């Protein structure tokens, strides 16, 4: 009998926990100790938590690794644990009907997991597991065998660009800061919303990246800027910092080189503008998060007026890999100007929602249909929105476009921090654009006029159009405002705010015109432009629509075709969703 321990890995990312992962893990631990499983089979069993492995629509995912064979179970609930323990862990036979399907393989097949790789494999709260996979070796190598300039050269050679917003070359940014004579210098890691899985799945990579960055620019203090609300991420990073400090990786005299490095948390609050680097610094300094005029750039005069580098957590997670495996290796991945991989949260109407990491240059078709498994309910794909609220909307005609910084810039979008939302035929592009503009208006800090007033006016005009009161001249005003905002706003938020409108208007002009000239919403979303009525041939007079109607707008008796009073109808769509016979028409 083999004496290798049996490993049980339970996904405890945000999604895994939401699906009840903690209970599943507890159940495994409980069953194994209570029933004396280890003694019975004569080998150790180690149930443990791991971070997100991306395939969130089938959580809770559990890996059982027995004699080197990995079996992954999907949608595990606590009641399934008993049988897995008895049949698989004790008996040695996997339960085939509960294992992942081909979808799981096709979801992973096209991905290239560099930074997400360890998430889902190692226990994020145990530094020894990170060290066992060569963790902190890159930091040791950088500090003991390389000068700060060597480190920067290696990062420049890798071609790594910032994974947050503008895609500036990370090495170049560091170089500018390194040249500054003024001390102290600061290095800041922004842990944004899309970085949460990294912080939860492999926090030590972020810490190590920050440490190497600190050494490269000669900063003695690093900040982790994170929203307080991301409890789990904060907790795991806190544990990681403590463990790293115990091992002497942070603190005074790191690796005996005389380099001192401390990491401190700075808790941000929910504000989109804090993604802008100078606004973020204002926020750390305890002020209203309003961007500063540049130049001077942060690398020269940043936090507390000192030279500062800001990168986001994904950028930092790439650093240990670049130092460890070499910049040349890293630059072999991706396209000519965009190197490496990019993490995206694939969401919206795509079948496999999840966290994905793709090599730069992969086509949207491969992402949506290959990794994403196509559109939910076999509907038609309409558009893809990339780069967060101020990204652009990509139409289906551009499905074969390779995703990298250059291509996205060409089509009026940005890579951003990595949101990708897929829309299907049921989504109204005008309404979606209005939604983004509402968001940007709310999040505009108000410092510069083009953005403060521009987002408001654009939102008002888009609202008019969705309500069926817009005119052709409103489109011209929207275009003019877009131009003014893009060229005169103080920071990236205002400059990129018109992106959703400009791209959607460019590719979905007919839809805008339908709202304006025909007073119709082709997707049937804008409530002011649709009416609900009963298809008399299909109505079975079951009465369910009448019961769900919140305003009692539906009348009818058993065995008599029902009807909707348009005066009372508030167009909530409750009847439309409730009818099993598709007898409610939306037009």
């Amino acid at each position, binding site marked *: 009998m083999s004496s290798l321990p049996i490993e049980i890995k339970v996904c405890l990312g945000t999604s895994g926990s939401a699906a009840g992962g903690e209970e599943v893990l507890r159940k495994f631990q409980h069953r194994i100790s209570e029933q004396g499983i280890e003694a019975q089979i004569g080998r150790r069993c180690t149930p443990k938590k791991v971070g997100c492995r991306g395939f969130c629509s089938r959580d809770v995912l559990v890996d059982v690794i027995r004699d080197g064979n990995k079996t992954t179970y999907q949608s595990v609930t606590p009641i399934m644990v008993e049988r897995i323990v008895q049949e698989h862990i004790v008996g040695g036979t996997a339960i085939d009907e509960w294992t992942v399907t081909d979808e799981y393989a096709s979801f992973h097949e096209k991905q290239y997991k560099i930074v997400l790789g360890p998430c889902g494999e190692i226990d994020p709260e145990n530094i020894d597991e990170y060290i066992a996979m060569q963790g902190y070796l890159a930091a040791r190598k950088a500090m003991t065998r390389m000068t700060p300039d060597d480190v920067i050269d290696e990062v420049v050679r890798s071609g790594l660009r910032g994974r947050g917003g503008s895609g500036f070359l990370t090495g170049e940014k560091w170089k500018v800061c390194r040249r500054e004579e003024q001390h102290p210098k600061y290095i800041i890691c922004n842990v944004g919303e899309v*970085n949460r899985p990294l912080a939860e799945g492999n926090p030590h990579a972020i810490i190590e990246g920050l440490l190497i960055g600190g050494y490269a620019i000669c900063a003695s203090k690093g900040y982790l800027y994170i929203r307080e609300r991301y409890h789990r991420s904060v907790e795991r990073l806190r544990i990681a910092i403590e463990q790293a400090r115990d091992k002497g990786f942070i603190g005074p005299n790191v690796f005996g080189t005389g380099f001192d490095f401390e990491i401190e948390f700075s808790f941000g609050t*929910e504000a989109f503008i804090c993604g802008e680097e100078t606004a973020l610094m204002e926020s750390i300094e305890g002020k209203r*998060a309003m961007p500063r005029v540049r130049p001077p750039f942060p690398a020269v005069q940043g936090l507390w007026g000192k030279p500062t580098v800001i990168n986001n957590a994904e950028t930092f997670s790439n650093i240990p890999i670049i130092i460890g495996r070499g910049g040349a290796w890293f630059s072999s991945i991706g396209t000519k100007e965009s190197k490496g991989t990019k993490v995206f949260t694939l*969401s*919206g109407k795509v079948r496999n929602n999840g966290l994905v990491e793709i090599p730069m240059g992969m086509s949207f078709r491969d992402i949506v249909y290959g990794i994403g498994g196509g559109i939910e309910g076999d509907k038609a794909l309409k558009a893809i929105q990339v780069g967060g609220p101020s990204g652009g909307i990509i139409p289906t005609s551009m499905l074969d476009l390779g995703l990298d910084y250059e291509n996205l810039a060409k089509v009026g979008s940005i890579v951003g921090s990595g949101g990708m939302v897929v829309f299907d035929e049921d989504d109204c592009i005008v309404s979606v654009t209005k939604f983004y503009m509402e968001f940007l208006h709310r999040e505009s*800090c108000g410092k510069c006029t083009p953005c403060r007033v521009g987002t408001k006016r654009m939102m008002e005009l888009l609202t008019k159009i969705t309500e069926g009161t817009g005119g052709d001249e409103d489109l011209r005003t929207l275009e003019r405002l877009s131009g003014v905002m893009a060229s005169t706003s103080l920071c990236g938020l205002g400059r990129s705010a018109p992106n959703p409108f400009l791209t959607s208007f460019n590719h979905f002009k007919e839809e805008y015109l339908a709202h304006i000239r025909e007073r119709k919403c082709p997707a049937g979303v804008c409530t002011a432009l649709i009416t609900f009525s009963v298809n008399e041939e299909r109505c079975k007079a079951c009465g369910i629509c009448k019961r769900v109607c919140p305003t009692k707008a539906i009348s009818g008796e058993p065995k008599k075709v029902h009807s909707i009073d348009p005066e009372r109808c508030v167009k909530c769509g409750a009847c439309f969703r409730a009818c099993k016979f598709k007898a409610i028409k939306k037009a």
Partner: protein
Amino acid sequence: MEKVLTKILDQHRKEKGSLIALLQRIQETFGHISEENVAWFSRMLDIPESRFFGVITFYPKFRTKPVGKNTITVCCGAACHIKGADKLLDTAREALGLSGDEDTTHDLGFTLQKATCIGACNIAPVVILNKQVHAGMDPVKVTKLIKGYEREEFLGYL
């Protein structure tokens, strides 16, 4: 009261923290930041009240009104939006009996909030009850969550 405030003040001075950190601590302690508390800290630290309110009103997270015992947050990011976050918000308001611009129930049991994007787009739409994230929500599940929680809480007293 004065004692608690003094403790916060001492800690703030010791850590040389920022105004935001101070406000976060006040809100953590009291659930909201009252005008009286601002006045007190303004006096003790010799920082004008206007600077406090400047920061408080800039960040949507800071509250000047009392908060409920439980917090329900509906994520209204893009991914959640197209999967019906607005309906979830309406449902939650209805289940909690909130009207107008109220965000907290009269018995201070629940506060309802909107979040911009919490980065859980892959499991949208999400609702966060206290610290627990609930994935793939719909109006029925939201009602059940709230009603179930109210009941559980109630049973807790027995």
